[in-house]
């Protein structure tokens, strides 16, 4: 290998209003997918609604699930306007190559080697092929991606066919000589069967595969794209997504649909979740299966709608009033969204409880190329009335799970109630009934065997150090293991897919003889840490 070839390369694309940087990132990722590479794309935006400065961060690799980017190999800018806004997100090094359009203006001070500027504007004016695509062609050439793939992906994306002149220009661009020092990607080890998916889509897929057929929701960043993905697909499967007037309607519509026997969900982000706690509490009391996807963003309040955080843990665990046991799960990475979402549906249907699925902006809006994701299994059928005694909706049972009828079923009529109730659903204030139902609602969760999905673990069983994380930080913790190993630290990463009901005994067992346990979380209040201690 006389040439500098690598299994992983990281490229940052920058530009301001209307430069098409977001699109360029998507096209690059998909073009690489077709060549057989894996990859990842994240984006960052300025405050403008549209047309502000944009950065696309693309990582390409020959193996899936590459570790977090620690340094960019290539930074390419169509213009540098307000690019300093991204400086904190853009680690570079002496080997980083920086290339910009000829008229990009003054760049921020980035460590790296500046390459010859690219003159793109005139050709754009002459051929109509925009600078973003020309830049992409240059990069594809340098990275070793093919013109054919690029043309296919771009014409699909822009719903257009490129004319002769455009093709000729792009062929020319892709042949732009590589400045020395720009590394090449190793040849791909993979066909073109891999998937191009983001966390929102992977979540939606799992929900549908497990059986969700009704959704009601109100748009909110960063959950909107999940809803937009679901809407036509739900309809295609004979279901429906209702755009509700607000989050109070959303959660209660989902409750109504599920009461009707149809697996139902809503999705939102922090502000919406805060509004839904009364409805979630109703689902707890009336024992209605329900999935609430919370795509976390920065808080508190309206907070930072486009940024990621894990600080909605406590509200998800403890938001509804009263003793309101329910289930909270979190996907341990983007590809895990499908399995965890499917699991959420299964748990909801089986345990007749609301399940909050804690996604994150960082999972939801990160697009990856990955091996095909296994389908989530269909949720088990709800416990059905047996018919041998007068039907009691809230009958006390050893497992705490009472058979659940649905309207239309013969002779199992009942009234679901959010007031405390007797076993047949009649409201009561009697202490004995309250104790019975409270303990039933708690027991059905505490006694459930959540199985292997509860926690994930990677690393030696007898490791000295255990890193505990959930959500998007589990892959981060895993990536840290090899670094720790090289530093001589024997470490293990434990990922919490199941956050509630708490599993102190299982966790203690999992932690084994670790001498040191570190909780890794993205919350200023150390929410997970305090929760695990309680």
């Amino acid at each position, binding site marked *: 290998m006389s040439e500098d070839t690598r299994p992983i390369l990281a490229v940052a694309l920058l530009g301001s209003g209307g430069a098409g940087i977001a699109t360029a990132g998507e096209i690059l990722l998909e073009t690489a997918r077709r060549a057989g590479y894996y990859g990842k794309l994240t984006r960052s935006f300025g405050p403008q609604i549209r047309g502000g400065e944009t950065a696309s961060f693309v990582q390409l690799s020959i193996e899936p699930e590459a570790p977090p980017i620690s340094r960019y190999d290539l930074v390419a800018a169509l213009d540098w306007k307000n690019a300093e806004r991204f400086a904190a997100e853009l680690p570079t090094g002496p080997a980083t190559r920086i290339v910009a359009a000829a008229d990009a203006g003054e760049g921020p001070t980035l460590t790296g080697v500046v390459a010859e500027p690219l003159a793109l504007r005139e050709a754009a004016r002459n051929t109509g092929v925009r600078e973003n695509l020309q830049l992409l062609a240059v990069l594809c050439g340098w990275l070793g991606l093919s013109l054919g793939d690029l043309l296919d992906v771009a014409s699909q994306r822009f719903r257009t066919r490129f004319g002769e002149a455009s093709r000729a220009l792009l062929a020319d661009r892709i042949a732009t000589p590589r400045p020395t020092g720009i590394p090449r990607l190793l040849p791909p080890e993979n066909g*073109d*069967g*891999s*998937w*191009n*998916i983001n966390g929102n*889509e992977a979540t939606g*897929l799992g929900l*549908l*595969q497990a059986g969700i*057929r*009704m959704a*009601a929701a109100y748009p909110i960043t960063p959950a909107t794209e999940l809803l937009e993905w679901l809407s036509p*697909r739900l*309809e*295609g*499967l*004979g*279901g*429906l997504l*209702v755009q*509700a*007037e*607000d989050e*109070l*309607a*959303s959660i*209660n*519509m*989902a*409750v*109504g*649909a*599920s*009461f*009707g*026997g*149809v697996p*139902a969900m809503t999705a939102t982000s922090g502000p919406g979740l805060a509004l839904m706690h*009364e*409805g979630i509490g*109703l689902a707890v009391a*009336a024992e209605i299966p329900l999935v609430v996807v919370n795509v976390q963003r920065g808080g508190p309040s309206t907070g930072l709608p486009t940024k990621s955080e894990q600080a909605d843990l406590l509200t998800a665990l403890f938001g509804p009033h009263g003793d309101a046991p329910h289930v909270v799960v979190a996907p341990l990475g983007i590809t895990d969204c499908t399995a965890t979402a499917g699991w959420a549906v299964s748990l909801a249907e089986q345990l007749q409880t609301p399940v909050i699925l804690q996604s994150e902006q960082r999972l939801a809006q990160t697009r990856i190329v990955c091996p*095909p994701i296994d*389908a989530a299994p269909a949720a088990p059928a709800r416990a059905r009335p047996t018919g041998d005694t007068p039907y009691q909706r809230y009958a006390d049972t050893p497992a705490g799970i009472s058979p659940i009828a*649905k*309207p*239309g079923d*013969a*002779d199992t*009529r*009942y*009234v*679901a*109630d*959010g*007031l405390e109730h007797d076993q047949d*659903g*009649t*409201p009561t204030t009697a202490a004995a009934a309250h104790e019975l139902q409270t303990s039933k609602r708690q027991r059905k969760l505490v006694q459930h065997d959540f199985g292997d999905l509860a926690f994930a673990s990677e690393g030696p069983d007898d490791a000295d150090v255990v890193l505990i994380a959930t959500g998007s930080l589990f892959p981060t913790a895993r990536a840290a293991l090899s670094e720790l190993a090289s530093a001589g630290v024997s470490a293990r990463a434990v990922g919490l897919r199941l956050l509630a009901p708490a599993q102190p005994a299982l966790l203690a067992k999992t932690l084994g003889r670790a001498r040191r346990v570190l909780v890794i979380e993205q919350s200023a209040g150390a929410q997970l840490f305090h929760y695990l201690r309680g």
Partner: protein
Amino acid sequence: MSAALKPRDFKSDRQPIWCPGCGDFGVLNAITKALAFLERSRDEVALISGIGCSSRIPAYLDTYGFHGLHGRALPIATGLKVARPELTVIATGGDGDGFSIGGNHFLHACRRNTDITYVVMDNEVCGMTKGQASPTTHPDWRQAKLTPGGTQIPSFDPCGIALAAGASFVARGFSGDPNGLAKMITEAIVHPGFSFLQVLSPCPTYRPEQKEWKSQVQRECLDEQSERAAAAAAIHADNGFSTGIVHRLERPVWPPAARGGTTLDDIARAFSA
């Protein structure tokens, strides 16, 4: 089998917690009459309510039901109907439930025109919480401890708002006339789309003066208008005591029917296409 059901067969054997003389007894009777008249199967009917005295009604019927949250009867009913279009879904509740905390859902249910019947038992008071003003309370009613000088806010006009919001069936009834009311509820259930019924239903406990409603109510004197504006004018001109169906208009029911055509495999396959 269901053809033989009498109104009383639609009643559960639970004892209502209502005060003697409460108007809601009449509404309960009227609903059972309508369901019996329509020969609905008890298994195919669901009553959805909020919280309040009036919202206790589902438990007194021998159908399916959901006694949900204060103000949220309509969303639960909408979710149910959309998921299970073959059911007869009746949303019920009080004036506080429907027009105070539930006002937004009321507006949007009128607009959406999902095939639900919404029966509001209007006693111009929050009965369950022991006598506070509701949106339909007269501005000068001074018996509420929470608003001792009266609300001094003009009262909410349920039928007027329903019309402005686009409800396709709007009627006003009186609980003291269970037969007339039963007929109205029958029409409302049969109407395809969202039907709204404001039922004057006295609260003898916190609004003893409502015992007079018996003599004030004008039965069935609202003329049915298919024109929204004409109906609004009629309601606007009325003193609030005329009853009848004031508006009925068939317009597309939501959601539109056609759905389907995809498989889970199609959906998964698209990630590598």
